């Protein structure tokens, strides 16, 4: 009884000491709209349709309207309708281009399979993540909007950060892990 009380009292003091230690540490909260968020390079955010930036096809859309992304998409949130390229109004290299290209971001689960399926590297997932809006229609992204690059307020960590940067939250180096599990 007496021993329990003393031990209990000591444990309470220890617990309060521990919390006091955290009272004096800097909060981990990122004040998002004012401060940028740190993101890993492989973060999958909103899609973007790319154009060729150099070479013989410079300025043309990469998408050839093959609809492999739509076929591969697990949630079937992509709709592609292909159109024929005509002489003089070439929108993409080759015969066909995407006449309609829509992604329903309400259904998209950001798995990145469309990116993998694409034979020309036309659709990629970028880092834009602040996608909330007031209207369902707005969240069905059409081709012209998918072609626009977004400028999210972020700091992009490099690939090294995933294994070495301690300040990157969630990342734990192998050495740290070994240290933590050594005692067990």
């Amino acid at each position: 009884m007496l021993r329990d009380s003393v031990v209990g009292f000591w444990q309470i003091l220890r617990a309060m000491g521990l919390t006091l230690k955290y009272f004096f540490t800097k909060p981990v909260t990122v004040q998002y709209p004012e401060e940028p968020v740190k993101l890993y390079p492989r973060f999958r955010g909103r899609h973007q349709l790319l154009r060729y930036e150099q070479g013989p096809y410079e300025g043309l859309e990469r998408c050839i309207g093959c609809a492999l992304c739509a076929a591969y998409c697990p949630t079937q949130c992509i709709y592609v309708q292909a159109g024929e390229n005509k002489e003089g109004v070439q929108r993409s290299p080759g015969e066909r281009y995407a006449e309609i290209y829509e992604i329903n971001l309400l259904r998209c689960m950001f798995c990145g399979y469309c990116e993998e399926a694409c034979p020309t590297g036309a659709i990629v997932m970028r880092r834009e993540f602040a996608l909330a809006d007031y209207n369902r229609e707005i969240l069905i992204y059409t081709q012209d909007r998918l072609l626009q690059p977004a400028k999210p307020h972020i700091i992009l960590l490099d690939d090294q950060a995933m294994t070495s940067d301690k300040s990157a939250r969630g990342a734990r180096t192998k050495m740290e892990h070994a240290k933590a599990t050594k005692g067990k």
Partner: protein
Amino acid sequence: MDWVADFWIPLIKAVVVVLALLVGGAYMTWGERKICARFQVRYGPNRAGPFGILQPLADAVKAIFKEEIIPLQADKVIYVMAPGISFAAVLITFAVIPFGPDVKLFGEQVGLGIGAIDVGLLYLLAIAALGGYGIVLGGWSSNSKYSLLGALRAAAQMISYELPMGLALISLVLIAGSLNLHQIVEFQGNWPFVVMQPVGFLLFLIAILAESNRSPFDLPETENELVSGFMTEYGGIKFALYFIAEYTAMVVNSAIVATLFLGGWKWPAFISDLHPLLGVGLFLAKVLFVLFLYVWIRASLPRVRYDKFMRFCWKFMVPLALVNLAVTAVVVTVV
């Protein structure tokens, strides 16, 4: 009748103290959220004004404009009255607490403290028990099982924990030889009671946590068992009234702890000749320290299970308080 000394001065003091308590209670909600947040390594409210200091105002505006809902089966009169009882009981508790020495203000001799009655300590205990009515009546009149269970727990908890609290205070009275809070503060000129009565201090601190339904003893409003306990059916401004009563109670209780155990406004003997108004500052600093302790405890300790909580009171605190009282009595007689 001397109108200035007998009417105006007490009235002005009362108004100032009530306003200070209201602001203190409102800002305690902000302070707790802020401090609690830092314990959890986040920032807390920081959108309404710099450092979020307009948060209590925003909360109040929101609470006032909420829809007034009274449950169909509720006892309407008592249901509306209960939060007010809680709040009023808290406010009048402060009447006997001295927050400074006698000073000369605007040519009048003013005692800082509303009423310097001789049975101050008794008054404190009586009024503190009164606050329980607000909770019990609110829980009962809501006519909801969660509210009733919460009220039941509140009643049992308050009755139980009043015992060790009272016993801890008796040992204090034995030493000081007075129930007058002003004299108790004067008595602590050399040593505050926390040094002379460490066990009594701990007992009183724990008991007062339980009395004001604070974590880790917030069993009347355990959200994982009772939704929100006695407050379940309350919304809008009535909920806000309960809420601010709870936080004002924290401020008042901290003032009680500061007065009884930490020496109140009295500076230690070796720095006695300071301006008397500095004593008020010292008193405030002590109150703030105890308030921080409140939040610190809340951030550190998990809620106690109900049966363990009751066992702790009756099988540990009451015997310990009795032993403490016996030892104190012997020491006081011998010395």
